[in-house]
């Protein structure tokens, strides 16, 4: 499950505080920061939807400075070779 998060940037510590707390969630497997329409993306690894729901409610929604969250559920991986076009 991929969560695209927009932060409340009126607080200058928003990025740092969010990152510190997000690192403490064991189910978070990737943290990326962006320049664009969203600020952060977290990759969440859950056993099933019930487990995801529980993580989402207890660990994600409680993270600081969140302004908006969008979820993208991964259906299939079509390509993942991480190769570079050398």
């Amino acid at each position, binding site marked *: 499950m*991929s969560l695209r998060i927009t932060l409340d940037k009126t607080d200058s510590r928003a990025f740092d505080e969010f990152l510190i707390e997000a*690192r403490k969630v*064991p*189910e*978070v*497997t*990737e*943290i*990326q*920061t*962006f*320049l*664009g*329409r*969203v600020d952060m*993306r977290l990759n969440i*690894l859950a056993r099933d939807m019930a487990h995801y729901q529980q993580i989402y409610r207890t660990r994600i929604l409680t993270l600081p400075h969140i302004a908006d969250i*969008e*979820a*993208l*559920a*991964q*259906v*299939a*991986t*079509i*390509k*993942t*070779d*991480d*190769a*570079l*076009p*050398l």
Partner: protein
Amino acid sequence: MIELDETDRQILAILVEDATTSAGALGRKLGLSQSAAWRRVKRLHDTGVIAGRRVDLDREALGFGVTVFLGVKLATKGRVSLEDFERAVAAIPEVQTVHHVLGLYDYRLRVVARDLSDFERVLRRRIMTLPGVGDVEANVLLSEERRPGPLG
């Protein structure tokens, strides 16, 4: 699902950080003999828990300074088959990963480029010309960290 005990999970946690850790080093860390550690690693391989090992390349050292995530929405769903889009997008060398997702977008692509003008070339010549492509949203990656995950 394959039965794993606490030691198996610890072995996986170490190997995820450094896949080249030897059976001897694993054994010393976990208080196992080298051969016991080796047998456990072999079982993890044989049962497919460890699906493979890969080399982690430094993109920037190789001159790929820009990573962009693209959210792509297909314009004409149904008319252009998903297979055509998927085959075409997977063939682009600059596209590292393609995920079919549920939500705001249909596909999520990870694209590498040497710099922003190189990215523009990829976007114009390769992405915008894909069959059935509609809305495209770009987010430039600033930082990335991978976490070990909820193992054990």
